[in-house]
């Protein structure tokens, strides 16, 4: 339209071409497209539900098949204390040795990761040191990004030899202690970031109130902020422990392959994940009772981690709601 005359202050009250003259896009076509896209996105969403369903159905069906095989029983699995599907004349399928191994590794891992992760989180959140933060944050991010097989290698070639070099300390080549420490290091970033979230969610006003009453940073963080964030910290612990329970590569490399119940973490042990990986490595025929036993173990593992994740997130959600 008018190029030179556009500078005139007089402005036509009508748009350059009457907007009404322009053909509108077909509303019906837009609606059809909209429904199509929404349908497609709903399909994507349903896929994630299907994954869960598939896991549950698969584990249930195959574990049931395992329990119907000769020499196995549900009670023997749940309460048995011997696990030797790959060795020995009579095979025993009692899951407790694997659970004991898993618990040992998780306990050691948490006793490493909990203090380190939590104190680092307190430090980052409450003391907020500029310079150290610039180093700590990337360190934790890098630690979180390192593949677990690397930690397994580290446990095998560094932590175990280091433990063995302590005079008077007898440690097997494969042992739960070293694997547990490595799993602990792996869990530090998870616990630290979840705990920091929990501490950050505590309202400023609580801190200000404590400071105004004359508290030091120590008083404020240990006596006010941590109690206020306690359920958030518990959830961090639960979610971190879930990760430790599900960890596979470190334990297959560093903890060994002997399933047993022991009170000594310095000996070889096997976890649930370790057993599954051992079978999967391919020493076992694909359709024997040993093969199907991994489904029973995986079902137990899945239920355990599912329960822990579920409660971890429940506590976390409750805790967040409390401060909103």
């Amino acid at each position: 339209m008018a190029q030179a005359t556009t500078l005139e202050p007089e402005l036509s009250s009508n748009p350059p071409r009457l907007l009404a003259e322009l053909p509108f896009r077909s509303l019906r076509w837009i609606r059809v497209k909209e429904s199509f896209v929404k349908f497609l996105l709903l399909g994507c969403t349903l896929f994630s539900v299907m994954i869960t369903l598939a896991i549950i159905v698969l584990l249930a069906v195959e574990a049931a098949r395992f329990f119907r095989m000769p020499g196995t029983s549900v009670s023997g699995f749940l309460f048995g204390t011997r696990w030797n599907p790959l060795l020995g004349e009579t095979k025993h399928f009692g899951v407790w040795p694997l659970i004991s191994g898993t618990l040992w590794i998780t306990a050691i891992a948490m006793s490493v990761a909990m203090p380190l992760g939590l104190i680092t989180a307190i430090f980052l959140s409450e003391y907020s040191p500029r310079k150290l933060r610039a180093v700590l944050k990337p360190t934790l991010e890098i630690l979180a990004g390192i593949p677990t097989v690397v930690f397994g290698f580290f446990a095998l070639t560094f932590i175990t030899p280091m433990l063995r070099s302590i005079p008077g300390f007898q440690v097997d080549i494969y042992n739960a202690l070293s694997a547990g420490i490595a799993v602990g290091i792996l869990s530090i970033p998870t616990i630290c970031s979840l705990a920091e979230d929990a501490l950050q969610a505590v309202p400023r006003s609580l801190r200000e109130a404590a400071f105004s009453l004359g508290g030091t940073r120590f008083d404020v963080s240990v006596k006010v902020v941590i109690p206020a964030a306690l359920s958030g910290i518990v959830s961090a612990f639960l979610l971190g422990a879930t990760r430790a329970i599900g960890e596979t590569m470190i334990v297959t490399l560093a903890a060994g392959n002997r399933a047993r119940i022991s009170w000594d973490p310095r000996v070889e042990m096997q976890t649930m994940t370790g057993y599954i990986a051992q079978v999967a490595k391919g020493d076992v025929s694909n359709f024997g009772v040993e093969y199907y036993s991994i489904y029973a173990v995986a079902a137990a593992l899945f239920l355990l981690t599912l329960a822990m994740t579920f409660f971890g997130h429940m506590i976390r959600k409750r805790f967040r709601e409390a401060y909103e």
Partner: protein
Amino acid sequence: MSQIELVNLSRQQPVVPAVDALPLKMMITIRDFNAWYGDFQALHNLTLNIPEKQVTAFIGPSGCGKSTLLRWINRMNDVVPTAHAAGTLELPDLDILGRTTDVVALRRRIGIVFQKPNPFPKSIYDNVAFGPRLHFRQMARRDLDDLVEWSLRKAAVWDEVKDRLRQSALSLSGGQQQRLCIARTIAVGPDVLLMDEPCSALDPASTARVEDLIFELREQYTIVIVTHNMHQAARVSDRTAFFYEGRIVEDGPTNFVFTRPKQKQTEDYVTGRFG
């Protein structure tokens, strides 16, 4: 005492003809309108006529429901999952709340400008062209250019942006951004402009420019403006509705509502006794 006398006086001797006597064509008809957020009833039995090519101001204290009503007029409240409404809310030829009413077509006719300027993180040109590109087919490049220019001129921001149409809209000042948002809204050719406290995030100078703009735009558009600022309502609006706790206490020509309110609550509010 003198205030009360004044009220009584206005009741007995109306200086300006009554509302219904005005030869105004109605644009939006609201009758027995109720709205809820979940179980909370935000609006109670509203009845109000909004005339064509006039500026109608909604005033009232915070939380009185004026923004809620505004957002119902172009169904922006559809976004809020718990919001629902009942009653009559109509354009001359369209039931706004109707089940079959297409919100997309509705929002093309009833544009809205928000409290905070919200340009898209795109270029100034693309911001204005966003709506036309959504709605119109077969739009020639020249036509689009002309439409963008027309809208920006109409929104009194052309001179400031004409040399940098390709720059990000976020580089503009707050007042310019808000006028850009107005340009963006009128670029789809609406009949009604809703403005939800359009100046509350702006400095006084920018506010004055936007107010001037509103005054000019009323020649062509039906404008509904929600404001906290009584002086603003008095300056820019032809008619005013005073909301209090989800009800319309009083409505009428602005000079009536401000100078001779019929209700005590209105008077208290416009004279600054509360709110």
